[in-house]
């Protein structure tokens, strides 16, 4: 399936570089099963025109995803989502998640929360999302 350009949304005035916003969205959609192996990412021109951002931003994002092994360039089709998640990708995802979790933990500690209160919050959040 060709992935529609309209599923992507970027915020140019966010502190997160645009290419990274796109990478995170592709990763997220793969993780939640919204896009599947064999699906094709929009072309650089198509998505650049749709989002009105510099085309180099899109090619940079797609290039990084390719280097990570999440997509591969297939002649005549474009950037195709690959089948398996590689160990290196998993390690990188863990590292990035760690940064987010650390921030939440620090915030909690600054508010004076205890270990068990923090654990409780994480537990509740996980339970809610796995339902």
């Amino acid at each position, binding site marked *: 399936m060709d992935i529609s350009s309209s599923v992507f949304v970027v915020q140019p*005035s*966010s*502190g997160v570089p645009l290419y990274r916003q796109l990478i995170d969205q592709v990763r997220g959609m793969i993780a939640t099963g919204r896009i599947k192996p064999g699906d094709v990412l929009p072309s650089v*021109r198509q998505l650049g025109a749709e989002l009105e951002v510099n*085309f*180099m*931003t899109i090619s940079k994002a797609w290039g990084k995803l390719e280097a990570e092994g999440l997509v591969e360039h297939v002649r005549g089709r474009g950037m195709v989502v690959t089948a398996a998640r590689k160990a290196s990708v998993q390690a990188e995802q863990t590292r990035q998640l760690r940064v987010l979790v650390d*921030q939440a933990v620090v915030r909690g500690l*600054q508010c004076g929360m205890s270990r068990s209160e923090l654990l409780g919050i994480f537990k509740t959040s996980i339970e809610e999302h796995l339902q």
Partner: protein
Amino acid sequence: MSEVMLEVKSLRKSFGTAEVLSGVDLVMRRGEVTGLLGLNGAGKSTLLRCLLGLLRCTAGTAAVLGCDSWNLGASEKARLGYVPQDVFLFPTLSVKGMVDYTAAFYGNWNASRVTELLRRWELPVNKACGVLSPGERQKLGIVLALGHEPELLILDEPVASLDPSARRGFLESLLELAADGNRTVLFSTHITSDVERVASDVALLRSGRIQFHEDLDGLKERTKRLRLTAGASLPLQSDLPGVLQWQVNGVTGVLTVNNFTAALPDELRAKWGADVVIEDLNLEEIFLANN
């Protein structure tokens, strides 16, 4: 590395005793779209005018398309596009007349593209240039500068008098022009969100020099704000390298750095026993932190 399209070395420019540019260095390569930022009076227009040979450098050199800016020939000028802050138009000519007049100077005029732009931007082709609104003047100036599809386009605050819809239209046209990766664009602006959308690179002019010129993504990745909560009072002065801002209030502190790495939070934890929250900054915040 792609071809150098523009090169400024140790450029100085004074007006009387007032030095506006005091040693500017800047290189742009083919395909780059650079947003030039700087406070009012930082010298953005002066730099652009030196590049175009409209002002003579007091010292140092400026060159575009491999040719000294002060001695540009007709063949170089044919490959350049420029939109000044105040566009010069003959007041008695109609918009169409002004387009025809300008087209006559160029052998490679893309008439269909110009017609398309005039239509898209709803410019009144039969109206006299003298009675155009500031926004219309600016739109026409941009159309005239894009007509010969310049390899190097220099724009001085191109969107200053445009309404949000016209601004988006202009940015779209700029992206179309830059899409083939062969055009190079340098534009000065105050509107950082425009830079974030279309620019590949950003340059900051401050105190008469280019403080940084680099790719926008790298800039965002290396400039971060860290909120610290330490075990004991934090020092009032910071001895860390690359600090842009350092505000301390007892055990809490706010630190803005221009050399962020993933290892920095750990260093701060080890140094002060501090909890660290990392914040991303957008270009406007980065701009303010650097001024």
